[in-house]
């Protein structure tokens, strides 16, 4: 039981990166923009977080800086894809290249050194003393509670129980109709894509300030791409998304436990699991959940730039 509790605790910790980045991607894709730059945004945020705490050892400041850099990068990306209406795949790949390359170049001085300040574990009084559940669910850093509880519930409420959320989804499904109904399509796309990018970079801050916690080239290791895949798997829904991220955190945690306990499987094979698992999860729903397809489908207007004068 103790192993399982530790496994869940680690799964939450590891899954937090994916969950936060994927929630950001949900926002962007719901208004009709695919952001394939998540991998690069995580790298930028991760490097920024470390760089800031190396000057001022305050994790919240590092996190805020990561979010700010992400917002700025997201606004540049939105300018290209929403305002100029450039190809989203190309611009997204470009963002991944720029983010990864820039973070590696600028992050060199911090490479390998441990973070000067991190988000410490926060035991919730009373609850953390519960047997099994205490360690598994109530003994993580504060960001874990925000990412797995506060954010998904808030986003779910916003998207499915408010007028604004309905407008938001309309923009992603049918921008022309939304425009006719007086919803500011480009404004919505611009800001939700930018905020989504900020969350992705925030996931990077989480990676280096709460999870690893240090910066090195390649520390992101494809998590951005897994996050993009998770969003599809989770049917573009915030609560499903964090649950899917938890599943992936679990796979990663299995790798750690396997290494620590010397399971007779080579470490690289265990390290391959999240990537192979993601591919399986991308294919599985199509084969198994035929009936749910409509419910889990991507927004109709995804990747389609919107031109008002084109009829």
């Amino acid at each position: 039981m103790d192993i399982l509790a530790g496994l869940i605790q680690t799964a939450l910790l590891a899954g937090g990166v994916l969950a936060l980045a994927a929630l950001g991607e949900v926002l962007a894709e719901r208004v009709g923009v695919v952001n394939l730059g998540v991998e690069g945004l995580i790298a930028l945020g991760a490097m920024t977080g470390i760089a800031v705490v190396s000057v001022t050892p305050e994790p919240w400041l590092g996190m805020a800086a990561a979010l700010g850099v992400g917002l700025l990068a997201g606004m540049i990306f939105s300018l290209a894809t929403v305002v100029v209406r450039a190809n989203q795949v190309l611009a997204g790949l470009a963002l991944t290249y720029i983010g990864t390359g820039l973070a590696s170049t600028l992050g060199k001085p911090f490479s390998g050194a441990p973070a000067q300040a991190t988000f410490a574990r926060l035991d919730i009084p009373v609850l953390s003393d519960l047997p099994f559940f205490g360690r598994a669910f109530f003994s993580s850093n504060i960001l874990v509670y925000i990412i797995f509880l506060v954010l998904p519930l808030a986003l779910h409420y916003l998207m499915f129980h408010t007028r604004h959320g309905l407008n938001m989804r309309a923009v992603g499904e049918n921008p022309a109709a939304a425009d006719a109904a007086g919803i500011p399509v480009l404004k919505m796309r611009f800001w939700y894509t930018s905020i989504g990018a900020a969350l992705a970079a925030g996931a990077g801050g989480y990676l280096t300030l709460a999870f690893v916690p240090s910066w090195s080239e390649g520390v992101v290791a494809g998590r951005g791409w897994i996050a993009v895949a998770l969003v599809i798997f989770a049917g573009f829904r915030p609560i499903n998304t964090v649950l899917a991220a938890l599943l992936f955190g679990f796979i990663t945690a299995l790798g750690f436990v396997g290494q620590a306990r010397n399971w007779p499987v080579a470490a690289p094979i265990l390290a391959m699991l999240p990537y192979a698992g993601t591919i399986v999860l991308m294919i599985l729903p199509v084969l198994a959940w035929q009936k749910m397809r409509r419910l889990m489908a991507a927004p109709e207007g995804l990747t389609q730039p919107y031109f008002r004068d084109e009829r």
Partner: protein
Amino acid sequence: MSTWRLQRLPAASPLVSLSARLISVVLALVTAGIILAATGKNPLDLGAQVISSTFGSSFGMADLALLFTPLLYTGLAVAVGLRIGVWNIGAEGQFNLGAFAAAGVALFLPGPPALILPLMAVMGMAAGALWILIPTLARAYADVSELITTLLMNFVAALLVTYVATGPWLDPSGMALATTARLPVEVPAVWDIVHWGLPVGLILAVLLAVAFGFTRWGYEVRIGGSNPGNARYAGMPVRRHLITVMLVSGAIAGLGGMMEVAGTVHRLQGGISNNFGYIGIMVAVLARAAPLGVIFTALLMAVILNGGIILQPQGLTTQTVLAVTGLILFYAAIGDEFARYRLIRNAKPAGTR
């Protein structure tokens, strides 16, 4: 007074879009130069250093050719996919697997080079095709986007190569830390250290240009890419073409990996793919997926990559080159859209002067 307005065209004219691509390259280099200048370096001096080291000596030219070769293969691999509307972001992984399979043949199969080398090439191509098989079937039969599946396979491939090079296939002499032993066979040289991978790649580009330009297959692939609905209606086997094209794309990247390990590096090691697959996407996009265009854009990207290597003492890395590549891609994406606009003069209403 006549008025002017912008008109958006369904497709940009080739000349305008070509100029847009060239401008995007220049803009990206200027942006990188400004960032360098902001960090207290003189970008013009650095640029001059790159040009003189690259083109000023036969060593420089040979180094350039060795970077040009793998980019030719990965660029062609991505370009072939784009012809039918497929984003093969996995050339990096297929390149790794090609190198892996070729090294395996060379290390463990004794025989005359005349027999072993062709076998290595075949196995390299087969491994590359195998590495894109699952994304191919998922795309063809379940309509799963190949963008993410091909990319995720890259990480698996990188882990696999690093694992065998540091584990089971580690150089038994104990001299190397993280590579296999030197391969007993090598791709013969054509000039200095430049090996046959280069001319073979050039021939491949010409063959592909002919296949796409002058055969029924190439025509059907192109239509299948630009308008799959119409192609299917016209009775073209779009799904079969999709599968063939994706497997060919993987095989080309795999062959590139074989040439790299057997012609340039001579040992299998982690990171042998060196971002060639990712930069290959840039090569193909800049060339607008034209095989002959790939020759020129691969050369251009090789110069930029070589520049990054020359400037390594200045604190740059191949990752810096990746960032510059991203800048080019970013400007190219914007330029593509701008290239579609045309300034036209509104016609004067009849009866006015």
